[in-house]
């Protein structure tokens, strides 16, 4: 009995390891290529681990390519968009969860409706809205941070998710605070927000992730190299260096690293958030 159990467990660990290889293998291969020279890559049979680690590819990326600037752009775009989403969506969610005003349900229905709009099909009209934006230059908002940040900053999903969260806070807390002389904004700021940190963190993480990884929208509105976000710069970089695989993989590694680090640092939040993902919706 015990022996079969050990065998069964070994079998399961074996399967899990194969799966691990499928998921993790490509990353290892990416990194191992990034620290090779172009000569190493041509060698047959290929070596998985290079005889010597060459870090100069990373140096080259930092000094000779457009990627650092793109990094900076992506960082600005993701941070600002995330801040806007967390603040504005939570304000709206507070009103939808806690305040009474005419048209509340209809407006919330509109919020839900915006969640259904497929963003890939909105690119054409949004591009021309950016181009024809009033009170701006001849090219409107094209090639600006405003265009990269604002159209997808606030998400209906964030409002929806936070409202669900806020509804679970007991109403007595609000009433007590009102008796103590708090106004609505103070209730929102001092009671509701601190009690819903996990929900807010989840919205923040997914906002950041989706802006950092977004491809089609920046491809459409970032016209000059100076405004490229990291994904667009990577694509251009890959076209430019074509067969210099070590350099391309070094670029990919550099671009993947911030999200990987963020993921490992915020591990508990990711885990918590994903359990809920299945029941709340999409980002």
């Amino acid at each position, binding site marked *: 009995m015990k022996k079969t159990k050990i065998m069964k467990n070994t079998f399961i660990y074996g399967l*899990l390891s194969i799966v691990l290889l499928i998921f*993790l293998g490509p990353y290892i291969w990416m990194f191992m290529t990034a620290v090779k020279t172009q000569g190493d890559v041509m060698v047959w049979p290929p070596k998985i681990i290079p005889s010597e680690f060459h870090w100069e590819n990373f140096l080259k990326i930092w000094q000779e390519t457009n990627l650092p600037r793109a990094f900076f752009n992506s960082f600005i775009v993701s941070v600002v968009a995330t801040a806007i989403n967390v603040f504005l969506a939570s304000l709206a969610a507070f009103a939808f969860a806690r305040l009474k005003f005419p048209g509340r349900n209809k407006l919330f229905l509109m919020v839900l409706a915006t*969640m259904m709009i*497929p963003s890939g*099909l909105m690119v054409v009209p949004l591009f*021309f809205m950016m181009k024809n934006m009033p009170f701006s230059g001849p090219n409107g908002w094209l090639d600006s941070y405003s265009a990269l940040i604002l159209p997808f900053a606030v998400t209906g999903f964030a409002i929806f998710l936070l409202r669900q969260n806020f509804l679970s806070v007991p109403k007595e807390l609000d009433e007590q605070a009102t008796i103590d002389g708090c106004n*609505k904004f103070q209730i929102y700021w001092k009671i509701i927000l601190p009690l819903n940190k996990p929900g807010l963190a989840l919205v923040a993480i997914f906002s950041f992730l989706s802006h950092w990884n977004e491809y089609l929208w920046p491809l459409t509105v970032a016209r000059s190299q100076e405004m490229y976000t990291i994904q667009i710069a*990577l*694509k251009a970089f890959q076209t430019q260096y074509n067969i210099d695989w070590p350099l391309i993989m070094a670029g990919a590694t550099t671009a993947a690293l911030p999200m990987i680090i963020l*993921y490992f640092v915020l591990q508990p939040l990711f885990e918590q958030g994903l359990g809920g993902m299945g029941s709340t919706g999409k980002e």
Partner: protein
Amino acid sequence: MKVETVPSMNVKRKKKRELHRFKDIAGSYLFIFPALSLLFVFSIVPIIYLIWLSFTDYSLPNPAVFVGLENFSRMLEDKLFMKSIWNTLVYTFGSMVLGLAAALGIAVLLNRKLKGLRFFKVFYFLPTITSEVITAMIFLWVFDNNLGILNYLLKVFGMESPPAWLLQPTTAMLILIFIGAWRGAAYNTPIFLAALQSVPQSYYEAARLDGANAWKQFLHISLPSIMHILVYSMVMSVIGSFQVVAVVDILTNGGPMDSTMVVIKHVWQQSFEFNYVGYGAALSLVLFPFLLFITWLQLKLSSGKE
């Protein structure tokens, strides 16, 4: 005197109450105004604009000219559009079935009490946080027909001339499906695992007493209990896959011979590369109801569960 003061006080109080009520409502609107105005301008207005654009002939820098239904009749003769729809459907279906089946299998493997499972779980999720562009770049290298690691391994295992994966229509589509499934499996595994873990243990105990083996337990207990999540994930997967474009751009750029041309890429190309904006808008508009229906279904499913 008394008779006079009482009504005036009442009026005063009423006025004060009304003012208070007005302030109350105005204050509430202040909370929602910033978020909802952004949503309105960037989500609702573009749809109206899209409808208008789709009835025009618009090529930059010329102004848009109203042409009625011309764009839509042109669509019927656009063979590439039909092909891109077909390709997208094949990709969507293939990557969904493969990805969800893999996710379910992995979730079942992880759903037990063993040491070190958390370690596997943490790494299994990596593809989800990695962008499509980076993913496509890595696989472009893995599947490279000359120097790629896959073809090397295939040669080691005795295959004399492994295929040039990305240069042939069928294999290029298979690779695309594989990558979609790779991402989908990573994304859905924790969702399925959470669902499996919420199935009460007593169900399994009862089944074991009835002599059900592991497979029967899976079929008759696990699967029905997580069916709603499964359906939900299918819908989500369709919405995501239908809008695939980044992976295609990097990996094949729609080729070889348009075998991986997908709808969003076609729309983008028509609008921004060939400068047929009106036509691109019409294409978007035609795809809209379809995706809208799936999204509506998704919302319905996810809210029906609570």
